[in-house]
């Protein structure tokens, strides 16, 4: 295990950024977000970013290809996948787990090469939590916020940053940094995690029962009735991966891009003859069935949620996966 003085954290960032692009969680226009580090940019004091770390692997908007159309002919020039290595510092354990969930979708055959390239170029440096928010429930999904994983795990204690490489990529990053000293981190106090109000959520029930029982639960009607049908929960969610592919006519060609989409939107499944999820109830059910039942069914029981608590904080009407999971298990809303 290596150490670095927290008082000179800026110098550590400068050393990393001297070799490759570095992203850290910082306040930009008052909002904590993963931002490209430049001299003077300080880490946010917020526990986590408002938007999740998925932005760096699956950006909200991304060009896929450009087309030229002339008369009856069409030509394609594909966009280039990212080829520059980068480091993302300060990822919390929940967001780090979300990469596994995104991987299981995007890296499944046939792999998404844009996503894959970013994953291969990235070195993920995680940061252990010591002061969780009340909305945190990663522990009930089997995540240890004090052992966050990634290529390098970091802990902050007193005036020291402790770094532990977990992978070859992590070793290489640490080896490239000057003045790292050896040290052992002190045992962290984990008592606050025992006080978390949502720590005892149990998601195991969802893989134990038939899909149709959950689907036909009477609670959906009531749970979805106040849903506004906005996309806040899906866009701040670190595991939501649905996207749309759209064309933009620039006037001198056509740009095909993909952008985040939300299953909460009325046009998500709209076809020429109509939609198969006509009301908010079906759309709402799709989102939570996907997280709690469909995704685990298709990916070895892996729940599509990491307990980051963003949807608890951001939903305009305070409806969220915790309320849904509890209501489903109780069978009443």
């Amino acid at each position: 295990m290596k150490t670095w003085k927290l008082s000179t954290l800026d110098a550590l960032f400068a050393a990393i950024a001297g070799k490759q692009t570095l992203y850290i969680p910082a306040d930009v226009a008052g909002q904590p977000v993963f931002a490209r580090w430049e001299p003077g940019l300080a880490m946010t004091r917020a526990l986590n970013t408002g938007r999740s770390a998925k932005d760096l692997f699956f950006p909200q908007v991304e060009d896929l290809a450009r087309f030229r159309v002339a008369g009856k002919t069409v030509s394609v020039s594909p966009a280039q996948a990212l080829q520059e290595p980068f480091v993302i510092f300060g990822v919390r354990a929940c967001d780090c787990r979300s990469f596994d969930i995104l991987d299981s979708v995007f890296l499944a055959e046939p792999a998404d090469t844009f996503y894959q390239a970013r994953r291969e170029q990235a070195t993920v440096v995680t940061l252990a939590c010591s002061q969780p928010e009340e909305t945190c429930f990663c522990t009930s999904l089997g995540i240890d916020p004090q052992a966050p994983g990634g290529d390098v795990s970091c802990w902050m204690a007193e005036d020291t940053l402790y770094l532990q490489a977990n992978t070859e990529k992590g070793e290489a990053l640490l080896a490239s940094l000057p003045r790292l000293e050896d040290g052992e981190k002190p045992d962290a106090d984990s008592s606050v995690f025992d006080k978390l109000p949502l720590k005892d959520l149990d998601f195991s029930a969802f893989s134990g029962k038939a899909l149709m029982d959950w689907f036909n639960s009477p609670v959906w009607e009531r749970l979805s009735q106040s849903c506004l049908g906005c996309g806040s929960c899906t866009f701040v969610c670190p595991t939501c991966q649905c996207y749309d592919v759209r064309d933009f006519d620039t006037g001198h060609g056509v740009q095909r891009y993909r952008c985040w989409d939300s299953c909460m939107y009325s046009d998500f499944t709209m076809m020429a003859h109509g939609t198969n999820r006509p009301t908010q109830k079906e759309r709402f059910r799709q989102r939570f069935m996907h997280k709690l039942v469909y995704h685990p069914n298709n990916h070895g029981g892996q729940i599509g949620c990491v307990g980051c608590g963003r949807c608890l904080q951001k939903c305009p009407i305070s409806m969220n996966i915790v309320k849904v999971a509890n209501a489903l298990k109780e069978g009443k809303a």
Partner: protein
Amino acid sequence: MNLTRDPLIPMVAQVTDIRADTPDVKTFRVVGLDGKKPMEHIPGQCAMLSMPGVGEALFSITSSPTNEDYLEFSIKKCGCVTNWLHAIEPGQQLTLRGPYGNGFPVDTDFLGKDLLFIAGGIGLAPLRSVINYVRHYRERYGSVDIVYGARSKEDLVDYQEILTQWCREDGIHVHLTIDNPQPDWEGHVGFVPNYVKELAFDTGKTVVMCGPPIMIKFTLAGLEELGFRRDQVYTTFELKMKCALGKCGRCNIGDKYVCKDGPVFRLDQMTQLPDEY
């Protein structure tokens, strides 16, 4: 690092021939820019056709894999992309990617079986690929019955091919029906589900069905009345898709993605899935 072309990036292809089948269905013949067939496929698989700036949409490949020169797509005019397709002329280039989906089990489960094809309207498009494949390898399969219905005689897709080829082959029984009586129509009049019941097929047959959801629902009920089991019935679905790779997240019926796990499903699989289609 992996620098292969992303599966979302299409190739350019060319439409060489356009045939008007019915007032709102045209069949498009598509080849690669080298003039050859752009891809190999299994009957029932689909491909993404797109015109940059207009949109991209998924279509069943109508031609049989045994056709070595081109792909065909029978397409009904109903939305953005299809409206555009219906307005183009031969020689137009467009983009193509695929093939996608599982296709029908023509080389496994169907082998040696008596096949009953049931189609309604444009639902014949995905079945035509299977029917022509079966006709090509006639000795591998048992008897073939085809029940095909449309709103009117003019709406019967591939009517000429049906009359001049399918109807004339031994061991293939074609049963056509239209919804309402018409002066120049001497065949059966009535909806497909009722016609299937009237024909009272032998319950040993394997059923391959495609058509509007309402037809599928009623025909299935009729078949069950006749004594067919759900695991004898195959159908093919289509829902809104953007990627066709199982990633964009919208074409699922329960935990199954139509693009990746379908579009062909055996109906006993559907009993454990929601009715969201």
